[in-house]
């Protein structure tokens, strides 16, 4: 098939296909923006040390997250993390209108296209949408780069609008994101067999997911609890710091993977229990769905759970900072004064919380697409059930059960894993022994070197250690917010239920 014909067929489709392409492009644009922002932060040059700037701060920025070289890596990492819910949103968008696309692909097979060509078409559709979105995101980034370049009265910038990432890095984003989107489509189609007579999916295993997700969680947490302190001791010597960071990144990812895949097990188990004991048809319908496709929960909640796990870790870090602040104050009070830890770190946590909130919102958008797609894809069955007298409220409650049942334990699991990882990583708050001199006289006497020593006493503070509180309030807020996001998306999804149960759907092809 000639490339032009391939492209033409890839972009042919119904209104739903157009919506899917637009949403995929939108997600790609958001991902491109996040990637460009992260690359820009990493592109900030670190100045040479000078007598006036031994810490090598980039003084042209007003924000410490950009000014301090040690914090820039974390800032870029947080921006890259924002891409996770965005990419998940793209993944959900790719499923939008799948039945209509399946019929179109089957029709193409009937017209003589090979299975390989059909896969290429699907990849190309997502890839082209991804490319358009990425280019749009890049254009937005460049426009923002110019428009937001506004130094304040001290000549400082709020954003790194004075630097651009390397052209090669930008090119990698433009090529990489559409490529990832296309490959993800091919991955999703691996269980799909498109024949001229229709599209079939290889049957899912009858057996539900095993509890091996628990092994992943234990392994990830063990990396933090056992491996990290051992490597930390050796890190002082220098050469193991790379391994330590790798261990932490791998441990975190493995634990996160455990949380996400664990949702499949939770869905299947709750579905089985519900099926056994359900007395109401709504619960029975939900149980049927949960056991038939337990991975749907993993797919739809993945980004949300990643955000919740990260947010719980951030809450743990905040609790650590608070405990550190209290220790500092206790020590300083012994010395006759009172000051706390650097407030910058605590205020930075508000920015992290904001990033988590943004991630939850983006993840909720992905969830909404999944809920709506679920309703629309099953519209014929829903319409038939309504026609036979099943009340719409029963169908609506089945959707609520279906979302909430796996969501509640999965969110609790994500909160627990995030808090445990954070606790294991940051450990107890501690301050070493300190010695300070306190002059207990009038200012004049203390200022005079001849009399100062007479009124000065030396106070020695022993090493202190405190166990940070479990940030229950923050965790409850985060968990409640995530559950509220789930309920809100289901509520919006239910708006589509009425139209999807209309009798006209019985005639739909």
């Amino acid at each position, binding site marked *: 098939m000639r490339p032009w014909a391939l492209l033409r067929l890839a972009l042919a489709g119904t209104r739903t296909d157009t919506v899917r392409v637009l949403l995929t492009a939108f997600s790609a644009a958001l991902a491109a923006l996040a990637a460009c922002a992260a690359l820009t932060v990493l592109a900030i040059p670190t100045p040479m040390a000078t007598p006036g700037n031994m810490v090598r701060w980039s003084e042209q920025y007003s924000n410490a997250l950009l000014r301090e070289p040690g914090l820039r890596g974390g800032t870029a990492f947080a921006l890259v993390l924002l891409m996770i819910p965005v990419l998940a949103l793209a993944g959900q968008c790719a499923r939008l209108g799948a039945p209509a696309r399946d019929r179109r692909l089957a029709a193409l097979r009937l017209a003589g296209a090979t299975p390989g060509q059909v896969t290429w078409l699907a990849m190309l559709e997502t890839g082209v949408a991804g490319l358009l979105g990425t280019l749009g995101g890049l254009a937005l980034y460049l426009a923002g780069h110019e428009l937001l370049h506004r130094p304040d009265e001290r000549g400082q910038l709020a954003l790194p609008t004075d630097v651009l990432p390397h052209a090669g890095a930008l090119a990698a984003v433009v090529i990489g994101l559409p490529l990832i989107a296309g490959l993800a489509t091919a991955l999703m189609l691996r269980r799909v067999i498109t024949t001229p007579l229709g599209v079939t999916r290889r*049957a899912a295993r009858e057996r539900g997911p095993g509890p091996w997700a628990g092994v992943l969680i234990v392994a990830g947490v063990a990396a933090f609890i056992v491996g990290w302190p051992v490597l930390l001791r050796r890190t002082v010597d220098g050469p193991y710091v790379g391994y330590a960071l790798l261990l932490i990144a791998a441990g975190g990812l493995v634990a996160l993977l455990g949380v996400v895949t664990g949702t499949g097990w939770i869905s299947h188990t709750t579905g089985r229990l519900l099926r056994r004991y*359900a*007395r*109401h*048809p709504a619960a*029975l*319908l939900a149980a*049927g*769905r949960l*056991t*038939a*496709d337990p991975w749907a929960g993993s797919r739809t909640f993945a980004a949300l759970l990643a955000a919740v796990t990260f947010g719980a870790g951030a809450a743990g870090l905040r609790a650590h900072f608070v405990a550190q602040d209290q220790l500092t104050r206790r020590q300083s009070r012994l010395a006759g004064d009172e000051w706390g830890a650097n407030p910058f770190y605590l205020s930075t946590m508000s920015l992290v919380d904001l990033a988590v909130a943004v991630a939850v919102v983006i993840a909720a958008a992905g969830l909404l697409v999944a809920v709506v797609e679920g309703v629309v894809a099953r519209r*014929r*069955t829903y319409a*038939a*059930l*309504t*026609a*036979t*007298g*099943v*009340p719409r409220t*029963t169908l609506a409650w089945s959707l609520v059960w279906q979302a909430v049942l796996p969501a509640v334990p999965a969110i609790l699991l994500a909160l627990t894993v995030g808090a445990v990882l954070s606790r294991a990583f940051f450990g107890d708050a501690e301050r070493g022994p300190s010695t300070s001199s306190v002059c207990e006289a009038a200012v004049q006497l203390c200022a005079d070197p001849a009399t100062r020593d007479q009124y000065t006493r030396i106070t020695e503070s022993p090493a202190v250690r405190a166990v940070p509180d479990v940030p229950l309030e923050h965790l409850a807020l985060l968990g409640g917010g995530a559950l509220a996001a789930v309920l809100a998306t289901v509520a919006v999804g239910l708006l589509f239920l009425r139209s999807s149960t209309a*009798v006209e759907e*019985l*005639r739909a092809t």
Partner: protein
Amino acid sequence: MSQLQARDLVRSYGRTPALRGVTLDVDEGEIVAVTGPSGCGKSTLLHCLAGILRPDAGEVIWRGERLDTRSEAARSRLRRTEFGVLFQFGQLVAELTAAENVALPLLLAGTGRRAAREAALTWLERFGVAELADVRPGEMSGGQQQRCATARSLVTEPRVLFADEPTGALDTLTGEQVLTTMVRLARERRTSVVLVTHEPRIAAYADREVTIRDGAVEHSGFDLSALSTGGDR
């Protein structure tokens, strides 16, 4: 005695008229075949009679009371308790087993789990698919699915069964087997049946044929039972 009556039903989809003043009576225990070419308004008539659609004009009377003026919830309740509805395909819930699908209307009516399952098994047995009780629709043939769907439509022992091309997706032999069982069970229980079909062979199972053309009754009252050769129609 007419338990279901339609009076001058009019219904349009946008500017396209589907029914242009249809009048029809269905007696208790009577099997009425509604026939006609594709797009003539047969299914729309069935949907109006079953309370799935509201007519734009005219009235539907169920046992002496207006049906079309009732609320959506009240009409749903009626379809759940007094009516059975059967379509060509797409009506079984893919994730539930055959027994769960058949038990669904009973559970909605408040029957206990155990009793609902037992009733479902009895009805699956009547349609010869009891061995599929714990099988999901995706693992059944079209004929087996339609037997389960028919069992579900009759499990509440409705007064009227509305069947819209119930054998349209089946081969001739399977279609006849499903229809024979359905008609026999309906007759045993004096269940009225409104059977929409475009096939004369299927219409021959009915007591009376009503032919619709361009949204109006072209022909009614023909007593097909006179042509019958056996009791199991």
